[in-house]
């Protein structure tokens, strides 16, 4: 396990480094795809930046708000940043809303934007999972397969790498076959379908899955539901677009 990385005498937190790397690579790929689809890449970078800023601020203020007695006495503490004193869920929601609002304000077509962002999101997710492998945050079930990795004294499935690999395969499929723009939103739907499949597969090797009745893993059930919804929308869109194009053909005739 490598919770910290040594670079030129500096000790860096692996989780933070990988999160930055994921954000940078993901946004670069999104900006590249945006350009290809005729959206201004600059706007994506700006939206990412504002979203991140708003997300951090939101996560912090949420934490201060919910722990107000702890800060009331000493208001300077509000400015003392610490990873343990951020609430990530609301932060992600607030950051996403701000980023989306910014894009909406610049009148970026959202379905096409989703197509531009989807491959970058997959790449970012894969990098984050590699980070999870390095820090040992995501634990696999014990195993004796030859590629098992010893974490906490027991050889385990490198489950975070499984998911990273599955996501990269999904990205490869999209890069090779998915980018023919049949209609806006297609790449995004395909990415959602494939990423859910990746999770459905890799979750089986996780040690700390949240379970429900019958020992089923909640994440797998959610992934299956999302896969089905994505497939259903893909199906309906396909025939709707086809119907439209054949209609316009008959109109021309």
């Amino acid at each position, binding site marked *: 396990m490598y919770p*910290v990385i040594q670079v030129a005498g500096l000790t860096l937190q692996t989780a933070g480094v990988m999160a930055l790397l994921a954000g940078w690579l993901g946004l670069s790929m999104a900006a590249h795809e945006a350009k290809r689809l005729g959206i201004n890449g600059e706007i994506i970078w700006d939206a990412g930046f504002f979203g991140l800023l708003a997300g951090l601020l939101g996560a912090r203020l949420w934490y201060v708000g919910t722990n107000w007695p702890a800060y009331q006495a000493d208001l300077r503490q509000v400015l003392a940043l610490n990873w343990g004193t951020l609430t990530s869920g609301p932060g992600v929601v607030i950051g996403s809303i701000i980023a989306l609002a910014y894009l909406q304000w610049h009148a970026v077509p959202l379905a096409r934007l989703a197509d531009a962002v989807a491959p970058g999101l997959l790449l970012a997710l894969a990098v984050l999972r590699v980070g999870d492998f390095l820090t040992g945050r995501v634990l696999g079930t014990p195993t004796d397969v030859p590629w098992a990795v010893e974490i906490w004294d027991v050889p385990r499935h490198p489950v975070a790498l499984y998911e990273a690999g599955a996501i990269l395969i999904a990205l490869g499929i999209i890069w090779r076959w998915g980018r023919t723009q049949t209609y806006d939103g297609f790449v995004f739907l395909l990415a959602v379908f494939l990423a859910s499949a990746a999770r459905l597969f890799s979750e*089986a090797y996780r040690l700390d899955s949240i379970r429900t009745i019958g020992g089923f893993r909640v994440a*797998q059930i959610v992934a299956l539901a999302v*896969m089905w919804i994505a*497939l259903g929308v893909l199906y309906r869109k396909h025939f709707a677009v086809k119907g439209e194009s054949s209609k316009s053909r008959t109109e021309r005739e």
Partner: protein
Amino acid sequence: MSTTTRSGQVSPSIWDHRRTWYSLMALTLILSVAWLLTSRIQDTADPKTLVPAPQMGFLAPDFTLTTLEGETVTLSVLRGRPVLINFWATWCPPCRTELPTIQSAYDRYADQGLVVLAVDMAEPSQVVAAFAQKFALHFPILLDHDGEVAAQYQIRALPTSFFVDREGVIRSIFIGPMNGPLMDDRLAQILGEGA
């Protein structure tokens, strides 16, 4: 998705057949459900709580250290009591601001079974003893002479606190100094059960 052939007729791709989609949906469902079934978790205990790791939800890694007074303390022997493990050092200003808060928590919750283990990182015992006397600290201070336990707990910043419940499972981790309400909030998590 259709391609126009030389004769000008539209030849549909496989995706234009509804049967392709129905087959894909059926295949997705069958494969997924089969995978879901095979990867069900059989045993009832939460497997995390059996793995010693310095992370939330896992079993607190065991250690044995000696106190300033020369007594030996082993974490696993304290099973059944909630434990606050605090890593600190005398040269660390944030630790100094936090120690009175820990003393106050110890005074208030000791009768509910709370154990405080303040692990000093790699300092001579005379230095630590003088410090404890000056700040009137009465909870057990453990000496981690070679920093082995700090390494075991992957300490990256001081102070770091681990809140361990009566089952020996880490319920929360806090990096940085805590004030009273922040600490009480976390102590309630480990004091609550079976008090």
